[in-house]
């Protein structure tokens, strides 16, 4: 069974204090790993897709990395507007049809001014 575990469940940072969120996964044949941001009362907003170990992607203050067992979302010098819940998901690769996606429960990030 595919599993995604995100840690910590909640993280409180001072503005400018860099940190990392962790996503550990087990999946039968990884096709892709996704990061989303979700603000209260809204739908998940796509951030990154990573496909293979060693891959990195960046967007503003966010950088996502991938190994064979986990992914990290690094947040550099965060600002209060980075406060949100960050979701990780893995997609199983199989031939044709629906490619199952399993979501983690998220890390709730709060950035204090």
């Amino acid at each position: 069974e595919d599993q995604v575990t995100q840690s910590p469940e909640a993280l409180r940072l001072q503005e400018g204090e860099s940190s990392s969120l962790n996503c550990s996964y087990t999946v039968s044949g990884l096709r892709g790993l996704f990061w989303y941001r979700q603000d209260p009362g809204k739908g998940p907003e796509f951030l990154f897709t990573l496909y293979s170990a060693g891959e990195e992607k960046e967007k503003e203050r966010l950088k996502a990395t991938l190994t064979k067992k986990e992914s990290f979302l690094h947040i550099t010098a965060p600002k209060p507007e980075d406060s949100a819940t960050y979701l990780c998901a893995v997609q199983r690769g199989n031939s044709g049809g629906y490619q199952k996606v399993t979501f983690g429960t998220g890390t709730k990030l709060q950035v204090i001014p």
Partner: protein
Amino acid sequence: DAGITQSPRHKVTETGTPVTLRCHQTENHRYMYWYRQDPGHGLRLIHYSYGVKDTDKGEVSDGYSVSRSKTEDFLLTLESATSSQTSVYFCATTQGADTQYFGPGTRLTVL
């Protein structure tokens, strides 16, 4: 971002009543999905569609049915709502079997 709308955005209903949630997309994406999101659980797939009139069950499909008569619309129906179906429901779409884009959600309360 895919143009995805959901209606209604909020609904309160009583146990035993039928409820239909609508998802509308303007991107002509082939795949559409219905998820529910509950505290302590990741997003869980209810049903998905891979084309007009082509649907299949997800991991939590009991008590739900879906229909897709047009590419742009995907309906989720609770035939007889129960309190355990109180949740936030999200629709998502993809063109291929890749990144899913989500709608704004529907908060459903079953009393």
